[in-house]
């Protein structure tokens, strides 16, 4: 599992690298007893939520650009 995260940490996609590095940091902190299991679980849930949030935000930004573009073309037609 950690091997996959290590591969992701150097895959070239900034968002995936950031998430993978953070997940590795959480795993390392858990192994060294710097955080509790409950804290680690909460942080990993936050990482999943961050991905959902990113997806929603990207969709919303794309929709806004699309509607703006279509509105501009419509104004040219009127």
């Amino acid at each position: 599992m950690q091997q996959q995260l290590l591969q992701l940490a150097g895959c070239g996609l900034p968002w995936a690298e950031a998430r993978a590095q953070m997940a590795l940091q959480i795993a390392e902190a858990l192994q060294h007893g710097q955080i509790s299991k409950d804290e680690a679980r909460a942080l990993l849930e936050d990482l999943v939520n961050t991905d959902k949030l990113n997806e929603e935000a990207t969709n919303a930004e794309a929709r806004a650009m699309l509607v703006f573009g279509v509105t501009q073309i419509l104004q040219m037609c009127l």
Partner: protein
Amino acid sequence: MTSSKVLPVSGVVLQDCLTIRTNSIMKRMIVITTIVALTGCSSLKDLWPSRWDPNQSKIVTDIQQTARNFDCNGDVFQQSRNLSLQVEWLDIYSKTKDTRDVAKITSLMTNTVKELNDRSSKGQVSVVYCDIKKKIMIQQANTIGHMIQGRF
């Protein structure tokens, strides 16, 4: 002679084309009207992006600033409470104004901040946990900030 024969035929063809086109537009309008009537505009509202709003822009910048300046060696509970209240303000405002796209992503950050607030209210949190949480909150605040400020 030839043109006089062609013209009435073309007229009939043109009329047929217009009738077919009008029928097609009418059918589409009926379908759209039915969808809107049945769903009460909710489906269209979900698809339509909200417009730029100065109040949302202001509060999201405050949230970004609070997250960046979060001090894990200081009073974590008080700081997380302040951040929680700011995110709650944005959430209430977005839901009341019915900007669903903003409300949807704000609710995800509400979970992140609320978890920290609940945990710190019960007692000490580890510094490493707080540091990682801070990074996540900064990322989430920046994403929401870009989305809110990037609208037209």
